[in-house]
Structure formats: C-alpha cells, structure tokens
C-alpha cells in the first residue's frame, strides 16, 4: 500500500473538485496518492473506519470525504483545500 492515501466518495462534490488537484500533483511532483473510494467499496470503507481515531479528531469528529492521510506520519487533511496545501502535505 502506498503511504499517501485519499479516501473519497464517488458522488461527493468535494472529492470531485479535488481530483484534478491530485492528478496535477502526481504529474508535477511524481508522488503517488492511492485513491480509495469508500461508498462503493466496503474494503476501502473498512480501512477508513480502521483509522477513525486518527482521522476524526482532525476532521470535525467525522469521517469526511475527501480525507488525505499519510499513513507513516498520520498527517491528515480533509475537505476541499488549495493545491499548494495539498502539495505541502504530499511532499513534506
């Protein structure tokens, strides 16, 4: 598993808005982000739930989508964010 994860929902407008940023980030920096859809894939949903204790305190007490997670540092971002912020998170 890649260390950088993006938990997203297929019909979540925030995720849809963030996808082009993720594509651009991968292209420009060469990092890879593993996209895990959680509403149509139970395995991915269970994985996100397994990280509840790490994700929730940083995302308003909820499992919001999108959630970006670095599984090595537990660095979390959630919701719609600027490209620069995403880049900082991914290249730190």
């Amino acid at each position, binding site marked *: 598993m890649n260390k950088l994860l993006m938990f997203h929902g297929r019909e*979540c*407008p925030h995720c849809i808005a963030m996808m082009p940023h993720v594509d651009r980030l991968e292209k420009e920096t060469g990092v890879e982000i593993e996209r895990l859809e959680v*509403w*149509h894939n139970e395995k991915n949903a269970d994985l996100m*739930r397994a990280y509840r204790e790490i994700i929730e305190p940083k995302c308003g007490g909820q499992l919001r989508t999108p959630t970006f997670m670095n599984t090595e540092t537990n660095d979390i971002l959630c919701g719609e964010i600027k490209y620069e912020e995403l880049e900082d998170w991914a290249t730190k």
Partner: protein
Amino acid sequence: MKKFWRCHVCNDVHYGVNPPEVCPTCLVKKAYMEISSEEAKKISGRSESTVDKVDFRKAIEKFSEGNQFQVNPDKKRVETLLEGIFNCEKNHGMKYCPCRLITKNFEDDLKLVCPCNFRIHETYKNKEDGECWCGLFIRRQ
C-alpha cells in the same frame, strides 16, 4: 428514551420522548397514549410508501421553504448529491450523506441521514454564506 404513541382519535403514530400536545392531523389536544413498537409497526405498516428521487427533490424544496436555507441552485451539484444519497440507500440501507462515511453504529449514523442537522455544523452556523457540509443546502440569499 423514545417511545411510540398513538392518537386515540385518528390513529396517528408518533415516535418520540413525549407525545405531541396537539395531534397534527386531527388537532385534538392530549390525544396520545403510549403503545408498543409492535402496535406501531402494525399501524404504520398498512401503508406502503416510497420516496424516489423526484419525490425527494420535491421534499427538500418543501423542507427548505420558509426556512433560512434553500436548496443549492447549482443543479449539477444537487444531481450528483442525489445520485449519492440514493446509492447509499440502495447499498447501505439509508439515505446517508455522500460526503461522510458511516461508522456502522446505527444510532450514530442516524446523524448522517440526509438532511442532517447541518444548522449546528461549523460550515453553516454563524456563517453568512453557510452551507451544509456537502453544499446541498445553502443559506438563503
């Protein structure tokens, strides 16, 4: 603890901590008495009703009417969200929010049934351009 209550005049069923003071259907005061969940199921189970996407669309319009919020005029966004809400119902049993994942604790997840109580969320409360977390509802302009 929430219980079931039945209007002894018109058989309306209420699920809540307390019975309604006035029956919203027959308008009789103090008309409710506690009943069992089995009785409540029998009464409400007599009528089949479904809410499809068109009904739901109408229901959220009606729900926002006269409220401080409205359905987002961004049609495409609303369509995407309704698609998600109905897929959630099909795959997970309830019309859950497409922008937050359920925990699989039924009680907790009731907070994620659309429309949720977004008025208390930080994306809406005290914000002039507040919206629900997904942007299905926005503060009325």
